[in-house]
């Protein structure tokens, strides 16, 4: 795979690292009992701790700690028995404390790795530097009033897991695959709801460019991207911007950038004199967080099957390709659907690839077209299994099956019902197909002549005519074979 960008004088390589912020799926905040519910009226879920009233003390949420450990295990990472909460100091209107409680030197989770899978069957490991727990800030609305910023503190103090990768990513696509993989792991573990639209999962992207083989270049950080599409767009734009500067003899200034989703451009957030100096120090209100080995073991044993384990199981049990299996595990609902579908009939085990295709291409495209989620699919996994079985036993052709699936989708009837009602069974009777072909040949003497004179392309015409007569129900392979042998006999 060529990951390089063509420049004026030479090729360039992108070097990308991601900081992913994943909201812990907890009922209450990291250090207070306020609710974390999304979409409530402004400032309705703010305790005196979240509003940083004098004298308030933080008390840590045990559940959030467990979810961070779980996620660490899912990232194949080292869990630290000892970690420390620090204050990250800065002033902003949506941060009432004047500091964010985060973890700096001693994070709860250390080095790990996740694997991404490419279409060509290869895969790549992206190393994780760390995962730490921290508080979210409130929300600022800048566009409601010409002279005011509105602040809602409902999100203030909600628990986040910040997952930091090594700069192992080389293309926008890899960045997309990496965040999808993290999202999938979080959702299997149920530690984060993965909802990017609501901001439960968002990312900061660090990006630089270099001549392949050179040292890392100076990087810029693009803040707060909340969709995979925007992440890819922002990386593409920012890489191009940096290359243009370097090729015209300039140098990159390390900067924090914002991505404008309507123009597709990045721009610097603040000028350099305001460069952040966070003055981290251990929060004197919080003792170090210690987790015993026993507790870590207890949490480990509660972990459900992880996407990669499931992937390997699919590859082994159903002889699926690495890529097909990776499509199934991308979302938990997809693997659940596949499991139910393939187990609905013992015969289907031998046609796993067919089941995958009908789920990930045909059904997904229908769902997309109708703006539906797999969870709300009008076609149940068992019914899809039945459809695939009708194909695999040659009862209907793949082409007819597409129409049947559309019918199933709109009427919620089973595949069997539709095929029976409409008489869509494939014609596999040799004599019947022969009869049709004889008719086609008799009706088109001129075409037959031309075909025999060497115009091979006309075979398609005969197939088309015969299919039309059988309303598309003739078994395509049989039709082809019989047609060829009949025409050649004429010679």
């Amino acid at each position, binding site marked *: 795979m060529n990951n390089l960008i063509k420049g004026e004088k030479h090729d360039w390589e992108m070097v990308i690292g991601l900081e992913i912020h994943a909201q812990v799926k*907890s*009922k*209450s905040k990291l250090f207070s*009992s*306020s*609710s*974390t*519910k999304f979409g409530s*009226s*402004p*400032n*309705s*879920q*703010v*305790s005196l701790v979240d*509003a940083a009233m004098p004298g308030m003390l933080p*008390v*840590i*949420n*045990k*559940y*959030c*700690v467990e979810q961070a450990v779980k996620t660490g295990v899912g990232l194949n990472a080292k869990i630290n028995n000892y970690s*420390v909460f620090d204050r990250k*100091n800065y*002033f*902003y*209107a949506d941060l009432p404390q004047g500091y964010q409680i985060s973890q700096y030197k001693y994070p709860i989770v250390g080095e790990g790795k996740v694997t991404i899978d490419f279409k060509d069957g290869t895969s790549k490991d992206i190393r994780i530097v760390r995962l730490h727990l921290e508080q979210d800030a409130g929300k*600022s*609305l*800048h566009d409601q*009033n*010409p*002279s*005011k*910023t*509105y*602040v*809602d*503190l409902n999100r203030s103090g909600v628990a986040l897991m910040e997952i930091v990768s090594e700069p192992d990513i080389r293309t926008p696509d890899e960045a997309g695959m990496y965040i999808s993989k993290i999202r999938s792991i979080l959702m299997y573990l149920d530690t984060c709801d993965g909802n990017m639209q609501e901001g439960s999962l968002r990312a900061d992207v660090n990006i630089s460019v270099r001549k392949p083989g050179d040292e890392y270049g100076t990087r810029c950080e693009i803040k707060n991207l909340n969709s995979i599409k925007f992440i890819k767009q922002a990386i593409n734009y920012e890489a191009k911007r940096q290359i243009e500067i370097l090729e015209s003899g300039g140098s990159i200034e390390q900067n924090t950038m*914002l991505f404008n989703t309507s123009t597709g451009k990045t721009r610097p*957030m*603040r000028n350099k004199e305001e460069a952040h*100096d966070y*003055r981290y120090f*251990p929060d*004197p209100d*919080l*003792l*170090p*967080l*210690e987790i015993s080995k026993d507790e870590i073991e207890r949490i480990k044993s509660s972990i459900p099957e992880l996407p990669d384990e499931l992937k390997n199981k699919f590859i082994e049990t159903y002889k699926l390709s690495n890529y097909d299996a990776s499509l199934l595990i991308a979302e938990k609902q997809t693997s659940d659907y596949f499991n139910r579908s393939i187990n609905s009939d013992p015969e289907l085990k031998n046609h796993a690839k067919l089941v995958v295709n009908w789920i990930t291409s045909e059904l997904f495209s229908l769902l997309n077209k109708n703006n539906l989620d797999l969870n709300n699919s009008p076609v149940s996994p068992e019914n899809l299994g039945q459809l695939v079985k009708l194909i695999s036993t040659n009862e209907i052709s793949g082409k007819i099956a597409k129409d049947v699936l559309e019918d199933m989708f709109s009427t919620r009837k089973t595949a069997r019902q539709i095929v029976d009602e409409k008489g869509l069974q494939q014609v596999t009777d040799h004599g019947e197909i022969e009869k049709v072909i004889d008719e086609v040949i008799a009706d088109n003497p001129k075409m037959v002549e031309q075909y025999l004179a060497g115009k091979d392309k006309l075979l398609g015409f005969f197939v088309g005519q015969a299919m039309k007569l059988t309303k598309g129900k003739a078994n395509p392979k049989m039709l082809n074979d019989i047609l060829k042998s009949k025409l050649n006999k004429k010679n």
Partner: protein
Amino acid sequence: MKIDKDTINKIARLSRIKLDDKESEDYIKDLNSILDWVEQLNEVNTENVEPLSNISSSTLPKREDVSKDVNSSEEILENAPDKLEGFFAVPKVVE
């Protein structure tokens, strides 16, 4: 380490505190004498000693994940200098 005028200005800016010349001079003196005093600790050999972040020997108390639903907006906004439709209203912060 010595605190000079630039350092004191930087600390003041980071803390959003306005200092006049007289105050800066005073703080430079104060902080330098504190730092000199702390400097003495450098005489202790701390090789292979992990930094201590807390002197208490007890462990971090934890709470269960239970949310208390209270509509806080009125109470929270009570002292806000400016508010609108349940939001705090602050001078425009544009990035």
